[in-house]
């Protein structure tokens, strides 16, 4: 019963979206926008409760339930929405609605001084509905539809404070970059239908087991299919939007960094049986993931903006997910997304708690907060420990699963990359922690209290979940068996994390070196700090090309196409102007015209008799 109505899970927040409309400042002008938030928290809570209830009803049952909602039926094309209600999808709904609930409560505290609650909570609920629908729907086509919905949601939410110029450009870039990936994904979605005759993920997996497709076709198809998740997950080279999306309001960043970027990973996870058909696509996926993981981690180390440190870590961890899918380990990818989401939510909540208190986002202007911000500091530490591979927290288990799988399939390069990324991330998080919480107090951090309970409570609940996550995983039987573990890999992971933390701690927490940034040559440092100059790269390649092309077509339209049509008009006007002089006003000219025309017509009409007439005339003596 409760599982059969699981389609309601995305509907509650959608109702919440509609319910906020009256509290937009345009309608209710007197009593303020706060009920919009409360209504949405209630709807999210309903959705969360429903998910949890459905999860316990489903747990232990092996057979997944599928429901089919007819959408439209034209000609011989029948479009139905298949819904999958299984422990995994409902579990993902719990994660989404739970994190959304916490983020919305957090937003009640964070957006205290803001008027735009109606809009903000409507967008948040819209996001939540889109994501729940995405994990529940079992069709590639509707997954694409919902990804586009989420793209629109990103655009609206990043552009929340639209009177700031950087917000407007950030929202533009977020929309266009994600849109490009989505459009290429659409090509893949359309191209797979004639091959598999289905968009149902299950049937696609069945098809993929026996499919014999031309390797070139499959390679192109696979690359189109990973292009969508590539832009969603902010993978190189489509990663700039996540950096610029940090201009949006922070509570939405919790959701985006933790969950929205993971929607792409979800599609990738669902598509992994199809991607296996082409080794080239798997190699490309792993390569993109590797480049992003290493690049993102390095860039995160060189950032001074707290939110941007976290955004590049999002790219990094999604890169690890790409590696996992590329190495044919979808389970590791899923576990990685789960553990990452909680840890990243804690980190972003901690960052928001700091930013609201000290105004600046520049970590070099912070310092010495540990004594006065112990709760936030603790949360930040838990987030950091939960993200990198440090037992007993979640990140360790997912990374261990990934690295063990890579080791067993003899992909040593990827193992080295995973360990390196883990090391860099640990170092980067230690650096961020050190700059914020250790060292001397700075001008900006002299007076910095902990925020109100509305922000602390969700943060601490997420911390609690992060800390208890291994227990939850072992209860659900998701942890790998201790005897089966590759203990060498575990030790290597622990050492890489510890080494990273240690180097970071020596340099930034202990402040043993006067200015650690001088250890790296300035050009390299700038290269990383400016994100490999990606904006410049975009502007000099794709943006330049499209700009020039559009200017050219505009010119062609203005001067060639319009010119031709205008020429026709001008020619008739000119000929009218010229021909009117035939109307000379002289009677004799008219008489001449008449005579001439009659003569011409007579000659034409009697043309065939003329030779006879001539011979007759000249033959007569």
């Amino acid at each position, binding site marked *: 019963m409760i599982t059969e109505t699981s389609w309601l899970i995305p509907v509650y927040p959608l109702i919440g979206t509609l319910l906020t409309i009256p509290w937009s400042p345009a309608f209710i002008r007197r009593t303020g926008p706060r009920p919009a938030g409360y209504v949405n928290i209630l709807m999210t809570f309903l959705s969360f409760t429903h998910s949890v209830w459905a999860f316990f009803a489903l747990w232990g049952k092996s057979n997944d339930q599928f429901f089919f909602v007819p959408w439209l039926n034209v000609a011989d094309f029948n479009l139905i929405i298949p819904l999958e209600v299984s422990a995994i999808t409902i579990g993902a709904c719990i994660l989404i609605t739970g994190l959304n609930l916490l983020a919305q409560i957090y937003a009640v505290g964070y957006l205290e001084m803001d008027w735009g609650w109606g809009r903000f909570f409507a967008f948040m609920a819209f996001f939540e509905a889109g994501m729940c629908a995405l994990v529940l729907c079992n069709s590639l086509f509707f997954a694409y539809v919902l990804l586009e919905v989420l793209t629109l949601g990103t655009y609206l939410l990043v552009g929340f404070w639209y009177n700031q110029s950087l917000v407007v450009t950030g929202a533009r870039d977020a929309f266009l970059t994600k849109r490009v990936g989505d459009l290429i994904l659409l090509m893949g979605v359309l191209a797979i239908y004639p091959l598999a005759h289905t968009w149902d993920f299950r049937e696609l997996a069945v098809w993929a087991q026996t499919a014999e497709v031309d390797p070139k076709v499959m390679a192109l198809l696979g690359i189109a299919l990973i292009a969508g998740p590539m832009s969603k997950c902010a993978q190189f080279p489509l990663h700039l939007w996540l950096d610029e999306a940090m201009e949006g309001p922070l509570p939405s960043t919790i959701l985006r960094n933790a969950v929205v970027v993971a929607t792409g990973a979800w599609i990738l996870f669902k598509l992994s049986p199809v991607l296996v058909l082409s080794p080239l696509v798997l190699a490309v996926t792993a390569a993109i993931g590797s480049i992003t993981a290493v690049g993102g981690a390095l860039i995160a180390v060189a950032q001074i903006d707290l939110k941007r440190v976290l955004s590049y870590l999002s790219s990094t961890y999604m890169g690890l997910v790409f590696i996992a899918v590329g190495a044919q380990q979808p389970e590791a990818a899923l576990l990685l997304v789960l553990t990452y989401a909680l840890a990243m939510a804690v980190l972003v909540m901690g960052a928001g708690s700091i930013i609201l208190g000290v105004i600046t986002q520049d970590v070099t202007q912070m310092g010495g907060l540990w004594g006065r911000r112990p709760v936030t500091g603790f949360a930040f530490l838990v987030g950091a420990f939960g993200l990198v591979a440090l037992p007993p927290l979640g990140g360790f288990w997912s990374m261990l699963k990934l690295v063990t799988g890579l080791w067993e399939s003899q992909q040593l390069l990827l193992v080295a990359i995973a360990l390196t990324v883990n090391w860099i991330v640990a170092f980067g998080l230690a650096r961020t922690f050190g700059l914020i919480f250790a060292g001397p107090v700075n001008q900006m951090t002299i007076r910095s209290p902990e925020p109100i309970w509305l922000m602390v409570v969700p943060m601490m609940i997420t911390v609690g979940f992060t800390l208890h996550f291994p227990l939850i995983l072992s209860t659900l039987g998701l942890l790998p068996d201790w005897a089966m573990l590759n203990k060498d890999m575990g030790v290597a992971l622990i050492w890489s994390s510890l080494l990273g933390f240690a180097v970071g701690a020596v340099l930034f927490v202990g402040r043993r070196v006067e200015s650690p940034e001088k250890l790296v040559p300035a050009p390299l440092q700038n290269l990383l700090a400016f994100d490999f100059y990606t904006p410049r790269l975009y502007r000099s390649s794709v943006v330049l090309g499209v700009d020039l092309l559009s200017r050219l077509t505009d010119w062609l339209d203005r001067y060639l196409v319009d010119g031709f049509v205008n020429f026709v008009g001008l020619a008739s006007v000119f000929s009218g102007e010229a021909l009117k*002089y035939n109307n*000379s*006003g*002289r*009677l*004799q000219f008219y008489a001449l015209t008449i*005579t001439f025309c009659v003569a011409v017509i007579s000659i034409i009409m009697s043309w065939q008799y003329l030779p006879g007439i001539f011979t007759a005339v000249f033959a*007569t003596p």
Partner: protein
Amino acid sequence: MIPLEFYLLLAAALFCIGIYGLVTSRNVIRVLMSIELLLNAVNINLMAFSNYLDPATATGQVFTVFVISIAAAEAAVGLAIVLAIYRNRDTVDMEEFNLLKW
């Protein structure tokens, strides 16, 4: 006996002379005179055809009589119009009568 074609060629020549006079004369009276030449060329045609092709009933001669009488009336009206223009504009030059143009 002179063949029919000779009459016809004479009439055609007279007609062409009339046309030439019609489109080149500057004096309105000469234009009217040219018109008379045209009509007389037509009359020669009618008479010739009547004599050579239809000597019994001579319908062409009846036509000729009508053309002569109507040509006289037409010339009278034409001269009246010329006089009317002359009263207003004090000239009979065709080059001066190009007011109704484009």
